[in-house]
């Protein structure tokens, strides 16, 4: 029983990271119809810049987090302006796929150059815990606060974004654009600016995820792709572009991985994750939440 409880808790914790990264993907895709392949690199920037500012340079945690999310939001906005804007309206999706892939490579290469400019090992950093408390024990269940805190963070972040979309003027504008981009433009909504806002919000979420998840993922200039892949699987399982989809999909994926590791063997984690995705696509191609809400 304790093994099962531990697997469920660990799955939710890991799934929360997938959920945060997947939320950024969904926000951008819902509003603009573009899948930003550079999103994972912004997570990497969040982790690398975060560990540099906070752990190495000694900035206060909150200030470092603000600087990180502003930086990644800015990179997200610039990505829309320079790499996506003129291409996303084309019918051929390969154009924005290529351009966002190009941005991903530029970000990763630049980060590697910066991190290793003295020939050292700074392309990989150990991200210290920002919650120092040791494990709590509930029977045989060990709860690590630094990992457990990711669950409420992911839920509250999703709730905040969901609320912003419904209450804030810019959020409602994005909803309108998601429903009918041309119609929104005809009614005078600044769809170009709204797209920038969507990418900036996606970048902000990615940077936030890289920072708050850093103690679990560690920081490495090569971490972006793998994390994006898992987040994409989570978002697909939960339902693209549903805002709550990544949270549900992340939980399903994370728990599936941990149950596999506990009862079947860790060597089966990757195949079973992908099998899980295939099953969901076969049974509910729209994802777990896809039918109830078609858009945001």
């Amino acid at each position: 029983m304790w093994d099962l409880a531990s697997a469920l808790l660990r799955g939710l914790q890991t799934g929360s990271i997938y959920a945060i990264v997947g939320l950024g993907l969904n926000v951008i895709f819902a509003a603009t119809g573009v899948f930003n392949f550079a999103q994972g690199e912004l997570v990497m920037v969040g982790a690398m810049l975060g560990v540099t500012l906070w752990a190495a340079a000694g900035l206060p945690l909150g200030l470092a987090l603000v600087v990180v999310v502003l930086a990644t939001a800015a990179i997200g906005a610039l990505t829309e302006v320079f790499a996506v804007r003129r291409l996303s309206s084309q019918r051929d999706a390969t154009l924005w796929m290529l351009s966002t892939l190009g941005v991903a490579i530029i970000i990763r290469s630049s980060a590697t150059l910066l991190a290793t400019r003295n020939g050292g090992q700074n392309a990989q950093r150990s991200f210290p815990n920002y919650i120092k408390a040791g494990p709590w024990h509930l029977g045989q269940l060990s709860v690590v606060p630094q990992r457990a805190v990711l669950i409420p963070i992911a839920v509250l972040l999703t709730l905040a974004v969901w609320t912003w979309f419904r209450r804030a003027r810019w959020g409602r504008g994005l909803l309108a654009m998601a429903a009918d981009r041309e119609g929104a433009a005809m009614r005078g909504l600044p769809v170009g600016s709204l797209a920038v806002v969507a990418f900036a919000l996606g970048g902000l979420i990615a940077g936030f995820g890289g920072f708050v998840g850093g103690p679990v993922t560690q920081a490495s200039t090569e971490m972006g792709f793998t994390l994006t892949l898992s987040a994409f699987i989570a978002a697909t399982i939960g339902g693209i572009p549903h805002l709550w989809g990544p949270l549900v999909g992340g939980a399903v994926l994370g728990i599936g991985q941990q149950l596999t590791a506990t009862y079947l063997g860790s060597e089966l984690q990757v195949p079973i994750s992908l099998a899980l995705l295939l099953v969901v696509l076969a049974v509910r191609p729209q994802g777990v939440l896809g039918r109830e809400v078609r858009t945001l």
Partner: protein
Amino acid sequence: MIRRWMTALVAVGLVAGAAACSGPSDGTSASAGASAGSGTSNTDPIVIGVLLPTSGPLAGTSTVYTSIVKALGTSALPGTSTIDGRKVKVVLRDDQGTAAGTASALRQLLDGDKAEAIIGPLYTGEATAALPLIKQANILSIAMTGCPDCGDGTKFPTTFSIESDRPSQMTSTLDRMAQVGAKKVAMLQSDDPTGQAYGDAFAAAAKAKGVDIVKTVHFAPGALDLGTQAAQLKSSGADAVYLATAVPTDVANAAKALKEAQYEPYMFGNAAAAVTVVAEAAGPEWSTKWAASGYGKNTTRPNPAPQAAAYGKKVASISGEAALAAPINLSAGILDGFNLIKRAVEGTHSTDGTKLAAWLVKNGYPDGIKANYTFTDTRHNGMRAEVQALVQPGTLEGGIPLRAGESG
């Protein structure tokens, strides 16, 4: 106008991508007229190809080598600008940390760059993929890994390795486990080719020594939470754990998970367990219970060899790193590889792989930086058990805290 900007940006991205994936990164200024084989003119530059993973999941581990690769052939590293009177041109290509990427990059080095000798790759899977091409081209290659076939002079007569072979590395590790009084041994193994290779070698060495591995636990490379694995290892009651992986961030994640499980056994691994990111994750107290193999005695503290101390100062002046820190030990292998090539070419006045191999077997490299290398016709791993050391993460202090060959 904006369309042009878009086109330009996409083009820049693609060019950067191509560069990251397979493009060369010359360590020296370009030299025209490079040529291959034994029919080269003495006035042509001699092209030394280097294979490192500068992209992909293993890219971070190659950064410690690149400052030295870039300094080869320049005045920053005296003695490397010429070989046998010919100017040196170093061409670095990205093997992407995969067998397919290695084959592609090596083919470019051989056919496009006309490389006459090769340094690298770093890892087992990539080095194994390079072996048939090297053999076919009959050129000298110095692998940075102790992969089984890299040291098999019978199968691949022109490939040598600056590393120890796995059996002697694992024997040193098991000897140290015995010295610290470990009663139960477990293994944490990554499900990738290098993890598999290290795991197999450790299991074989343990069996040969009559050591029972009480538990072997696997993990997927890049897994975010190794808590389940940590719990399984803890419940096995092992007081020493061998880490079979070459990815430092995975080692760091394992260290965090084991600490969270409040389980801090003696930890053993290869060079990936010795880097700073692992020391940061393990913390200063537990680091003293870690030992990473694959190191040469010459560069370890407290008594580094004079040539290693001098090299440490030189690298510190090039890259700004602290002298004789763990990365310097690793990068010393690149310069040792270069010097093996240089000495053999100058000893034979040829770039023919067969002649160079025969010269190396006869002469070895008794004053290498990382270690003193000796070879035989059949055994091309240059670092023997007696010149190996185990070190703590983040330092070059002897691991736990003795060095191989020293009594407990």
